[in-house]
């Protein structure tokens, strides 16, 4: 399979605090990979390294075989290929819903406004927010914001979409609408990398589940193995604690 990203010996430390040590894994086209693990295990940092929002301290990130940490490819060009959905939505507060989905297309991809709008509407339709195009972010609910954030990322037509705990900041009743959109995307063949605490989502939707603990990947396998018959004691312990709640 065509590997979009391959990570080799990735390391990240903040000062003396080592957050990621020797991470190796890859994501192929069309895969849905869920990263699970307790708080502080480094899963968000790993995702942020993939988008260079955090700059790795060592190792390689191969994008279609080219190491983006060495290549002349600018960070901005690479980032445009990796969409990101944040825990706190981070919609542009000064722009309405439609402009949130258009600004990147116009400024970064240099598209003309008409085709940018068409693309934006297509994805706003997909996430069910096409009625709210003139609303400002502070006028809509958290779940709606997150759906717009997903449409914004999709409008850039990225090769992969990174989700950083997309439902953790939502009221429980609003989690469903966002997960529904994500399931729809997963079925459409989009490459997704999801840091999540939603074990149900990981079990049902993911092709692969990665369990992280203290900055290392403990186990990387299909959901059936991870959830039913994990090989590692730490995975078993984590799942027992999480699923009990």
């Amino acid at each position, binding site marked *: 399979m065509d590997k979009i990203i391959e990570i080799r010996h990735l390391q990240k430390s903040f000062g003396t605090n080592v957050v990621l040590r020797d991470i190796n894994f890859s994501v192929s086209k069309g895969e849905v990979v869920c990263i699970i693990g307790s708080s502080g295990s480094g899963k968000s940092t790993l995702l942020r390294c993939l988008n260079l929002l955090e*700059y790795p301290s060592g190792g390689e990130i191969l994008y279609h075989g080219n190491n983006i940490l060495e290549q002349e490819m600018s960070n901005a060009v690479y980032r445009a290929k990796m969409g990101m959905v944040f825990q706190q939505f981070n919609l542009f507060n*000064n722009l309405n819903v439609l402009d949130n989905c258009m600004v990147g297309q116009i400024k970064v991809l240099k598209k003309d406004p008409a085709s940018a709008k068409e693309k934006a509407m297509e994805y706003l339709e997909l996430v069910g927010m096409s009625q709210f195009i003139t609303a400002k972010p502070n006028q809509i609910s958290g779940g709606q914001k997150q759906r717009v954030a997903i449409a914004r990322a999709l409008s850039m037509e990225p090769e992969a979409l990174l989700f950083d705990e997309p439902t953790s900041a939502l009221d429980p009743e609003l989690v469903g609408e966002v997960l529904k959109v994500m399931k729809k995307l997963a079925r459409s063949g989009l490459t997704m990398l999801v840091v999540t605490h939603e074990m149900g989502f990981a079990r049902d939707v993911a092709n692969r589940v990665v369990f992280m603990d203290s900055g290392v990947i403990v186990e990387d396998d299909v959901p059936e193995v991870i959830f039913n018959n994990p090989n590692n004691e730490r995975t078993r312990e984590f799942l027992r604690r999480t699923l009990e709640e």
Partner: protein
Amino acid sequence: MERTFLEWVILIWNSNWSLFLIGARNTLFIALTGTIIGFAIGIVIGIIRTIPIDDNTHPVARIAYKIINFLLLCYIEVFRGTPMIVQAMVVFYGAAWIYNIHLSPITAGIFIVSINTGAYMAEIVRGGILSVDKGQFEAAHSIGMTHFQTMANIVLPQAIRNILPATSNEFVINIKDTSVLSVISVTELFFLSKSAAGVNFAFFQTMSITCVIYFIMTFTVTRILRYIEIKMDGPSVFTIHGSQSVPEAQIRIVNRE
């Protein structure tokens, strides 16, 4: 014959109204121009002072940035740390003595107010940029925007909205503080009021009129800027016209923040 206060005011206004109006016009002109130029200076410096510098920055760029930043800091500290009345004297007479440039008082006045406001605005803008949520920068970077695209399209519009109250404050201060320019004979409101009072020696009555004019100007300006703020914020309630099932429905979404 003893005049009442009101009779004095009417008399002074009737004989000096053109002086008051010219003074008010000059005051407003200097304050407005000075605030706008100062705002522009503040934006430029604020942007420069918030350029992110990290380990990946080229060493030469880092040193150049340090030097520029130091010079800007000197400008800010010197002009914030000395009285405008003294700056006016130094610039006006200094320009004449050192460079043999004889500035017109109004030009000198605008120059002083601009660079003085610029020094304050630089810090206000910097604060405004820092007050924008870090997530806004990250989201903009994540869709591939460069630092300057992020600034121009996402951060500055929000920062400017956030610093509007402080800017309106600066404008009001400038309307009042142009009065110190009377020391370099700028024909602003206070200077002309003084000359009017010098004719009739009715200082209290004349300055009472001056007070009212200053207040009308500052109050009008704060109201106008407040109105602009409200306009920029837009309504806090969003109405959808027509739903999928009922086209004539109006669904009101109340601001949930």
